[in-house]
């Protein structure tokens, strides 16, 4: 197992290298560079300015030369500076963007999970009842409504129509001070984006939980538990749910790396400064250093979670052995 672990970790290094090469090459293929962005903002910008700045940033060199230079820097822990925000790219991502994404996506995931499980169970236990039909209809609506539209509607209802009830977007209200006021303010800003972001997952997971529960409650061991005279509550929540929830946990686990890459539509509509929007903007305005550090981080996460999943399988399933 140890040898396997070492081998897998060592495999990550060349994999990341190849990923970085592909990502850098793809970004370099995109027309435009940061100097074109500067030229757009400066009508008096001269050709001399253009040539000088391209040389300054090394953009007059072929992409593979620039890649090599970039690689040399990140080996020493220098991820470069964000040309969009004038700060170290890694600091910008991990200090200003990543925590916001974890907060929003994490909360949405928790909300979706803890509502989907009981709703799915109730829907399964009351199969073909009015409540079941109602939950099913709501779920289909949740799956069908585009998040950006739902977001705009939520803003329209709770910020515009019921004026001042909840903020239209952003992370916090400028100038709010005091611990309690700050906490309340942050909660107010989180409500609408969390509702919007969790809606899709909630709908999908409720359907998933319902199907899983329906399958499990018809199995022999559940019938046996009932025959033993256990209470219905104990049969459902102790025996059936524990098995029915396992596939959902696997599904949620698969969503974890996505959680860190951000939710671009929700972040845009609610003006939430997260990873998704940061990556999108960085690519759009040719902020290569921010794009590379973000994409490489997500690649590392995906590789790490794959490894973690493989290790977990080996730990929980005695039939799997890695040599």
């Amino acid at each position, binding site marked *: 197992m140890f040898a396997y672990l070492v081998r897998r970790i060592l495999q990550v290094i060349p994999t990341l290298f190849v990923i970085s090469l592909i990502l850098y090459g793809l970004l370099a293929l*995109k*027309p*435009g*560079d940061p*100097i*074109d*962005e*500067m*030229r*757009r*903002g*400066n*009508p*008096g*910008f*001269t*050709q*001399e*300015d*253009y040539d000088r*700045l391209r040389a*300054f*940033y*090394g953009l007059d060199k072929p992409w593979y030369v620039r890649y090599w230079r970039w690689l040399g*820097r990140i080996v020493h822990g*220098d991820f*470069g*500076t964000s*040309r*969009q*925000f*004038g*700060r170290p790219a890694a600091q*910008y991502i991990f200090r*200003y963007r990543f925590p916001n994404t974890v907060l929003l996506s994490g909360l949405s995931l928790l909300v979706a999970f803890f509502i989907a499980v009981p709703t799915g169970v109730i829907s399964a236990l009351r199969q073909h009842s009015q409540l079941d039909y109602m939950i099913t209809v709501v779920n289909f609506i949740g799956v069908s409504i585009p998040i950006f539209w739902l977001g705009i509607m939520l803003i329209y209802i709770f*910020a*515009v129509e019921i*004026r*001042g*009830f*909840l*903020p*239209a*977007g*952003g992370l*916090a*209200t*400028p100038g709010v001070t005091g611990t309690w*006021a700050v906490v*309340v*303010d942050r*909660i*107010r800003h989180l*409500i609408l984006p969390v509702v919007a972001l969790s809606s899709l997952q909630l709908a999908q997971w409720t359907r998933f939980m319902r199907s899983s529960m329906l399958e499990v409650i018809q199995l022999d061991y559940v019938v046996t538990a009932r025959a033993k005279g256990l209470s219905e509550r104990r049969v459902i929540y102790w025996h059936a749910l524990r098995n029915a929830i396992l596939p959902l946990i696997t599904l949620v686990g698969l969503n974890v790396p996505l959680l860190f890459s951000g939710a671009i539509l929700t972040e*845009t*509509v*609610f003006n939430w*400064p997260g990873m998704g*929007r940061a990556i999108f903007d960085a690519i*759009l305005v040719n902020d290569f250093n921010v794009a590379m550090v973000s994409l490489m981080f997500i690649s590392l996460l995906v590789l790490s979670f794959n490894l973690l999943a493989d290790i977990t399988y080996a730990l929980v399933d005695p039939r799997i052995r890695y040599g």
Partner: protein
Amino acid sequence: MIRKIVLLALGIGLSLSVIGWASPALNSLVIGATQEPSNLCPWEGAADTKENVMGIFNIGLTYFDSEGNLQPGLATEIPTEANGRLLLFRDSDGKVIRQEVLWTIRDDAYWSDGVPITSDDAVFTYKVQNTPEMLVTTRAFSNLIEVVCKVDDKSFWIIYKTPNLFYANIGGSIGLARHYDIAPEHIWGPIYDQVMEGIRANPEKTTEIIEGQFLGAPPSTGTGVVVGSGAFKFEEWQINQFIRFSRRADFFLDPPGPAENYLQEITVRYIIAQPTLLSAIIAGEIEAADDIGLAGLDPAILEAQLGAQGVVESTPSGFIEKLNFNLFPQCETAVDLLLGDKRTRQAIIQAIDRADLARTVYPGAQVSNSFLVAGDIGFDETLNPWPYDPEAAKALLADLGWADIDGDDWLERTTDDGREIQFDLHWVATTADFRIRSGEILQEFLADVGIKLEVENLPGSVVFSSEYLNHGSECTWPGIVEYAEGGGIGQAPADPLSNELWANDLLEVPVDATLENTPLPENGYGGTNITGWVSEKFDRMRAAALQEFDVAKRSAIVKQMQQLYNEELPTVPLYDRVETVTKMVGLVNYTKGTAAARCQFWNAWEWGWEQNGAVAVR
């Protein structure tokens, strides 16, 4: 149970909604903007969004007021020949060959940390601007300077090696930007010394040192002491959220009445999505919008949405939306379509109902017939308006040999080498909503005269990339590219050099006619004349205008340039774009005025709420 849950939810909701917005009561203002500045470094970048923010806590030697008049800011007076502060040395032909300008800074001008603003700051600003290693975005004006000399603590001379017509404009003197001519030496001096020391020790790491220690310096990122010369003091920058400023008690320009009647705090909030910004405005979270965030929205619809609580103002932006033709003889498609023949361009301008187009895609915009924005010095109001006349367009196209040969409603012609071609004209623009709509409308207008417009909308980063825009000679865009250009040469805060129309810079001595401003393989695709239009007559007039300090004479030359442009139509001007600004009722003096002002945040010291006693003077 359900009732209890509903009541609990309502209770929580009500308690959460207690944090409201009461800016007039607090004598503060929350401004909404969609674009955030990249940094606060005075030497880097000059995008409108950064200049707006810099304008709140900085002021230049001069500034343009809401009527477009130049006013002294940090300077005691605007240098002119009459007051002896502008010295012009002419050759025997009367041509200006040398220029010297004397500036004096006001005695009561202080940086926001209380340090006096002196001529040492001006000399230092130019030193950094002129240091080859430093990351300076543009040296368009500073390259004209020979030296900046200190006279005493408050006065300094700028000696030009090439005359600078725009010497008195904000940003035109030392060449920083449009809202801050001078940077504080006591803040940036130690940073500059450290950066230069680092570069001397590790010249191979120049880029990293500049990026990390200069652009990344605390005064640039807002993480340290940020000092300005303007009416407000920088307080904090929560990146991706807001920047906050507070009023200075020691600023030298006063609004009418007590200063405490005017804004004491300003917050600029960044909301990237336009619909969300609009929602926040209607919800009352944002009390005023900047001049960029609501671009392209219909002022009438905005007024309806805001109702009685808000005011909508449209002001000229200084930018002209136009169709740029590919006129390169190297591009076969463009040659086949006879785009190089002015009659083709004249046919196209007459085939488009530009008034209808402007009304539909950019409400409030006015049709343009010039490369200058209306109101600029030398603007010619008598130019041919090229009214909508599809019959005239058809006649011109018929003269050129175009006819519907196969009866499919599209024009065809036989080329000199015997090929039969159809008038399929490629049009490209960015993915901005109004441009997507513009493509659809142009398609309809041109179809009426038999031209088939192939519409393509690409991201701005692609359209404006040099690999695309500057490679017209290779037919990267074989027909038309639509975008907006800052129009100017008369007063010209937007584009003082008329960058996109000239081919040869005849200001240079000796004159070299190598099409230096036309992107071609020979010059590495450099230059901004992306249409490839070459007119020696136009270039000579431009050179003459840029050296003519007499406003009346310059206006006459500029009018001739416009007449030539209007006849030749190297680009088809569509409309002067407008900027739409909203503000809550009661907010006074928050106005931009003319296109000359360019930046909206030029008079923050006068902003205030009427209900708090602020007096409207704009």
